[in-house]
């Protein structure tokens, strides 16, 4: 293939390549975007599951403490410890699955849980919950000093509740950590979305530019010479004006022009 056919084919092929290229780019970028969205959703789902488990564990601990300290059911002393152990185990499991940036959050959870456990431990060590004041039989006898009766509600509100609240807040922080880390991820995603559109948009602009050039070149190197030759040939046949084409001719067009010139200028024209 050569001459005009070659040029026109290359012109069209360039446009096809560009179309294929922009399609490929959009597919590639959409694939990346889809991966990022999956990662964001997965991370969000994981953090909710972990937080749910941790909250269940501290709620169980809270119930046990209420039973033990407020309702003074000493049977729940061990339950408190078991619930604490369960919470620590859940934190440990979550830490192993967490990303490096989230490890510090679990460290602070550990510390808060330890402080809460210490508060309950001190209560257990003092054995004030189990203490029952002796019954005074002889009212005339000198009263022996009796420790004040343990006020469970007061202890719960003043000593335990602040620690419990701090731990709950810690768990909430773990839950929202995935969402706060979503912010840069979301930013990245928005940039990806922007990038996904930009290459396609630029390819489109380039394609329009190439199409315009193609139109221009076809007009000046193919259409215009044909129109000019046709007009000039018509004029020379009709008015016996010498055949002359001003527009630039290339390849077959130049050959055609030369051949018409030879035919028109050398051979007598019959009307």
């Amino acid at each position, binding site marked *: 293939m050569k001459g005009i056919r070659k040029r026109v084919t*290359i*012109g069209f092929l360039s446009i096809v390549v560009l179309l294929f*290229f922009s399609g490929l780019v959009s597919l590639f970028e959409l694939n990346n975007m889809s991966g990022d969205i999956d990662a964001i959703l997965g991370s969000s789902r994981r953090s909710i599951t972990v937080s749910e488990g941790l909250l269940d564990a501290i709620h169980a601990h809270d119930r046990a403490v209420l039973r033990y300290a407020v309702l003074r059911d000493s049977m729940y002393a061990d339950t408190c410890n078991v619930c604490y152990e369960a919470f620590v185990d859940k934190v440990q499991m979550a830490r192993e699955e967490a990303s490096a940036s989230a490890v510090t959050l679990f460290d602070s959870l550990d510390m808060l849980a330890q402080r809460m456990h210490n508060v309950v431990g001190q209560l257990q060590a003092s054995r004030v919950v189990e203490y029952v004041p002796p019954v005074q039989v002889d009212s005339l006898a000198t009263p022996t000093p009796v420790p004040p009766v343990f006020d469970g509600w007061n202890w719960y509100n003043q000593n335990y509740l602040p620690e419990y609240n701090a731990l709950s807040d810690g768990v909430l922080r773990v839950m929202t950590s995935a969402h706060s880390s979503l912010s840069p991820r979301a930013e990245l995603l928005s*940039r990806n979305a922007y990038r996904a559109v*930009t*290459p396609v948009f*630029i390819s489109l602009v380039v394609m329009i530019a190439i199409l315009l050039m*193609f139109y221009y*070149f076809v007009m000046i190197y193919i259409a215009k010479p044909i129109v000019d030759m046709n007009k000039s040939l018509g004029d020379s046949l009709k008015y016996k004006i010498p055949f002359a084409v001003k527009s630039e001719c290339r390849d077959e067009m130049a050959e055609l022009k030369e051949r018409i010139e030879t035919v028109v200028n050398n051979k007598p024209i019959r009307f």
Partner: protein
Amino acid sequence: MRFSVVIRYIGIILLVLAAFMLMSAGIAYVSNVDSSYYPLVMSSLLTLLLGCFPLIFVPTPDSISTKEGYCIVVGSWLVSSVVGMFPYLMWGGEFSVINAWFESVSGFTTTGASILNNIEALPRGLLFWRMATCWIGGVGVVMFALVILPSIGRSKRMLSSVELSSLAKDNFNYRTQTIVRIILVTYVLLTVATTIALKLAGMCWFDALCQAMSACSTCGFGTKNTSIAFFNSGLIEFILILAMCISGLHFGLIYATITGKQNNIFRSEVSRVYFSIIGVSSVLIAISLWLADIYPTLWLSLRSSLFHTVSMFTTSGFSTVDCNTWTSFAILILIFCSIICGCAGSTSGGLKVDRFLVATKMIRTRLRAQRHPDAIFRTKIDGVVQDESMMGVVMVYIVTFMLLILIGTFINTLFGADLMTGFSAALACTSNVGPGFGEVGTMANYSLMPVVMKLNSTFLMLLGRLEIFGLIQLFFIRWWR
């Protein structure tokens, strides 16, 4: 006017740009396939396609007219700036369409003004492309095409005469092809020498190459947020001062000095004025800073003042400190340096020392003529009598240059900039210096400027780089007839 011919030559220049984009993609690939790799590869393919297309259809013309030459040169700068946006836009980050256009124009015109708040966040491939734009722009996009592509043939003379100003051709007595080769060889050798020197001074290879490209093109783009202050090294500053100083000289004079020709740097009147301005300005600024207690010792004042004087005077725009904290006297001298700038035939922008010298000599001649009305006085530079018409052109250029700065300041202040910021931004962009004073100071950037101001600045950069009249002519309808 044959548009097909204009498109063909612009296409050739696009091929050169595509090659540089591929090189940048190579850097991105070597840097563990960083995030700029795909944008650069994609951009180079698109640019290649865009550049190749006209070559399929348009045959090599026997010659090109002056009009076509102007259109090719101006069109090349404009199209290069548009195509230069592709990698930035595809990468994303801080690059919106306006920001990418600003950064691209700033690079190609070697202005060195930036909209980036965090340069260090850019991947290496994109950093290299940023430097490549200014390195190509330093010597002129058309000059690259003239050397690399022999197919341009007889059109070389026309294109080089349009690309190089008449003053730039003064020191060359060679054929067009030789002139182009001399400029390119001097430029490449200077860049290589600066790279090696910076590496030996303690920079890594990448930083050394990038800073050398930036210094030799007198652009001032950096690889660090704090520009040269990041390196905190007297030796690096000294090497850059030397590189900037040489790049601000006429390349023909540098070549003549190296090859032992008679008309060299030491004999040229222009280069004597060039070095005198640097010396006097540096000393005056140093004394001013020392007296104002901005620096504890005179030596430190001199080091800083010399660096910034050379940086502003050669239109590089590198910085080691925030010049806004300097005295008003020092700032005024730096503004004066930003107006005059380097020599013609160098990579620097601005008014040029040559024109300043002609203007001052014309003033002296005028004064002498007033004293002796019947006497005939001639203006000479390096012993050569200057043509009256050429001197007229110089004066027109100076007036137009000042008018442009004034109009630029009007527009900037109209859209909310304070007087200092508006004026210095207009001046820094027209002279292709880059950093100015106020909110666009040496340690700040153009990111907070409104869109209109950014567009105004890019227009001024292009006008300054194309020596005003080349671009302005395209806006006259009569010119096209």
